[in-house]
């Protein structure tokens, strides 16, 4: 659909709102793309590369576009053009290489876990001086630290005297409350269909606990969960960086592995990966061999909250915590999933959801944005952290590992005790307390 230049996208764009340059707005970027197509602008020009690079890819412009411009698709094409026209920055090139190899991914995640376990990340991050040069290292370490399962709400949440979750596993005391809601229907095992969980790369490497929680809550809600080997990184990082060659390679591997499993649904608990899987049909549309299976896989992909939300969602035990919900861009803008994560939180008695100002605005994480655009990404991230702190919540729930780390790192460096969690982790905890997992 063509852009008619109405400008309705301008106020929705985090970069335009902060910079005020038309070139940093969706309308301006589309204009640059069009100029390249018309041959009026070189894809090698600094203007094209800088402003296409500076886009977060949050797609907040799509739901406000009356003409239905598919900005995300056009951006990917523009990114591919940029990627071909020049070498990617070294750090980005390295990340793309690492995540396109399963062995390298596993190895780097192992290293990351060791660093995290040693607890050095947080310590070092806070000591590295705040300046531009050190920013990537400082923030990177803080992100790693933020992926740790930090304890939250040690005061409000301990009606039974135990912290809700900690690395030490002090949970058992909390499971005996037996306050299971009367309304919770108990499903027969597996009656709602076979589900494969996309384990992902970062999610599997640093957030295995979210994957485990996803598996448990799916089972508790009547899904049969199938373990599917041979799957890997979804390739979203590559698509967004313009490296569509590697993105397609990764997509093919996933299509092959997941299609063979013959499941009803593929559950994804990372918004960016869910959006990527749902667009596999488009990514592989020129691939005769894979196209149809890719489309079928895309059609069966669901965010975890989509599989859970609904009248049939089981209600767990009370979890008296104050939570605010940040809507990951690739959940609300790219997938149009808005109410479902709130429904997941709604199934937890005594959990209070506090409204977050500009909840649907990007947190500045945006893949490698924090590394490539430390200043602007930092500003956007700082606004999100301030908004979270203003709610008075003790937990910020968000459905994407990148956002959990970005917001978590920002909070950490602010010296705040507020932690970032996936909504499913909270539901899992509520179920654990309700005793849904006893004897399993």
């Amino acid at each position: 659909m063509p852009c008619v230049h109405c400008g309705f996208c301008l106020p929705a764009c985090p970069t335009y709102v902060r910079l005020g340059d038309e070139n940093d707005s969706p309308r301006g970027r589309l204009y640059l793309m069009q100029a390249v197509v018309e041959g009026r602008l070189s894809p090698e020009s600094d203007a094209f590369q800088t402003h296409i690079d500076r886009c977060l890819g949050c797609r907040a412009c799509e739901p406000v576009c009356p003409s239905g411009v598919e900005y995300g698709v056009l951006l990917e094409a523009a990114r591919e053009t940029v990627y071909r026209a020049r070498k990617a920055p070294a750090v980005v090139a390295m990340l793309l290489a690492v995540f396109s190899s399963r062995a390298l991914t596993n190895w780097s995640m192992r290293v990351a876990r060791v660093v995290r376990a040693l607890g050095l990340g947080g310590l070092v991050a806070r000591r590295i001086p705040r300046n531009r040069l050190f920013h990537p290292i400082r923030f990177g370490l803080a992100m790693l630290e933020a992926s740790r399962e930090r304890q939250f709400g040690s005061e409000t949440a301990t009606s039974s005297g135990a912290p809700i979750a900690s690395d030490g596993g002090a949970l058992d005391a909390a499971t005996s409350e037996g306050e299971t809601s009367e309304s919770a229907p108990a499903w027969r095992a597996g009656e709602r269909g076979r589900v494969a969980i996309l384990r992902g790369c970062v999610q599997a490497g640093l957030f295995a606990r979210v994957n485990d929680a996803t598996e448990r809550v799916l089972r508790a809600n009547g899904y049969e969960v199938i373990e599917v080997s041979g799957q890997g990184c979804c390739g979203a990082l590559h698509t967004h960086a313009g490296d569509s060659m590697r993105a397609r390679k990764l997509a093919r591997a996933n299509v092959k592995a997941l299609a063979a499993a013959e499941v009803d649904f593929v559950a994804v608990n990372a918004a960016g990966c869910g959006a990527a899987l749902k667009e596999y049909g488009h990514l592989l549309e020129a691939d005769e061999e894979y196209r149809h299976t890719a489309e079928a896989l895309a059609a069966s992909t669901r965010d975890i909250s989509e599989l859970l939300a609904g009248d049939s969602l089981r209600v767990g035990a009370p979890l008296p915590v104050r939570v605010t919900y940040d809507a990951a861009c690739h959940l609300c803008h790219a997938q149009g999933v808005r109410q479902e994560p709130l429904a997941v939180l709604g199934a937890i008695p005594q959990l209070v959801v506090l409204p977050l100002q500009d909840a649907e605005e990007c947190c500045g994480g945006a893949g490698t944005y924090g590394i490539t655009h430390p200043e602007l990404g930092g500003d956007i991230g700082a606004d999100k952290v301030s908004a979270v702190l203003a709610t008075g919540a003790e937990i910020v729930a968000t459905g994407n590992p990148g956002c959990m780390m970005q917001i978590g790192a920002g909070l950490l460096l602010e010296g705040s005790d507020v932690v970032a969690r996936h909504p499913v982790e909270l539901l899992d905890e509520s179920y654990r307390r309700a005793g849904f997992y006893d004897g399993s």
Partner: protein
Amino acid sequence: MENILPEPLTKKLGDRLRGVVGDAWVIADADRLLAYESDGLTAYRKTPLAVVLPRDTDEVSRVMGILAEEDVPVVPRGAGTGLSGGALANGDAVIVGTARMTDMLELDPDNRLARVQPGMINADLTKAAEPYGLYYAPDPSSQSACTLGGNVAENSGGPHCLKYGVTSRYVTGLTVVTPEGKIIELGGFGREPGGYDLLGLFVGSEGCFGIATEIEVRLLPKPEGVKTLLAIFDRLGDAGAAVTEIMAEGLLPAALEIIDGPTIRAVEASVFAAGFPTDAEAALVIEFDGIEAGLASDVERAVVQCRAAGAREVRIADSEEERLALWRGRKKAFGAMGQIGNDLMVQDGTVPRSKLTEVLARISEIGVRHDLTIANVFHAGDGNLHPNLIFDRSDADELRRVELASTEIMAVCVEAGGTITGEHGVGLDKRRYMSLVHTPDELDAMRDVKAVFDPRGRMNPGKVLPDLPDSAGAAV
């Protein structure tokens, strides 16, 4: 109109401007100026010499002072949503944009006043006033994106201006930077100043007198009750007749809008689909607001008039959600035209309400004769028409036919006793029609006023008045 090939900004001028606003806020390389070729009316494209984005009155004043010393023409720009080409700059002119001047300077709920920077978005002002039960009344359809500075320049209207009036009724004071860089205060709360009403002159001057850098506006308390109706018609003319009858009945709706068949189908294909029946040829959105008591009887009388005019169905929005959906559909209609065509020219004219049906029929005939799709979505209660002419820029002949049809539509409006613009301004696009509605003496009077504010003719040159040569001497 001839596009002047831009000479690059001289280093000296560039450095002076950067010295005021900072390096990042002077855009001068040719590639980055492409995005500033057009505002909301893409039929015209011109590349400016440079774009400067100052942060406050002081920076605007210093920038304007430098540009005055260098004798460089200036074009103000808000969000670039204007539909008359008012923010287009020739290659020798610098655009001074307000995109970074978005602050609320003062919100005074007790006195129902707000003072804002000109880059603040119209809808953001109402959002800020809402917690106090207040709102800003003028609501151009682009209110989610357009700026208050732009609204002042164009004296913008909007659907609810039928009852509440246009921007000039709400602006109580302005801080203005003159073309020479001087800072002057016009109007202002509590000091209804003696002397000439310069504030009245400035509002609607389309950026030709100076740049408003602070805007003080009046806010209104939100009405106690609101009722919104949707009437569906099988013929556009019947909807026009209903409008005439509703107004003749003595009713004063807050808004009275017509959306025709092609527009309905564009909106319904978009994310802002509001449930307008796609087989209808016209829909009327009618809103009444005010004290709760009495609203029901107004609604009842309007329903009777709609049915008498041939409405096949009249619905009353049950919920606030349904009401907002109708308005979203109506207000996003312009943007939704991309669903049915690549480019569009939104025309803007007014006619007496009693002539609506006749004029709509003539516009439809013009469309048929020039083989163009024309979609109508407009403020019917005001007699303010917005025929949207759909075209494809790459088709030179179609563009030529759009020009012809536009001229004929303007002539029809004027012949019917109306005028060439309701709210989008004259800008670049309408100056050629000015002599249809103004005598040479009237145009001279306007020229004299312009010369008082801008003796050297540096401020938004080539706009509004027809036969002043523009900054490059190119005539339209």
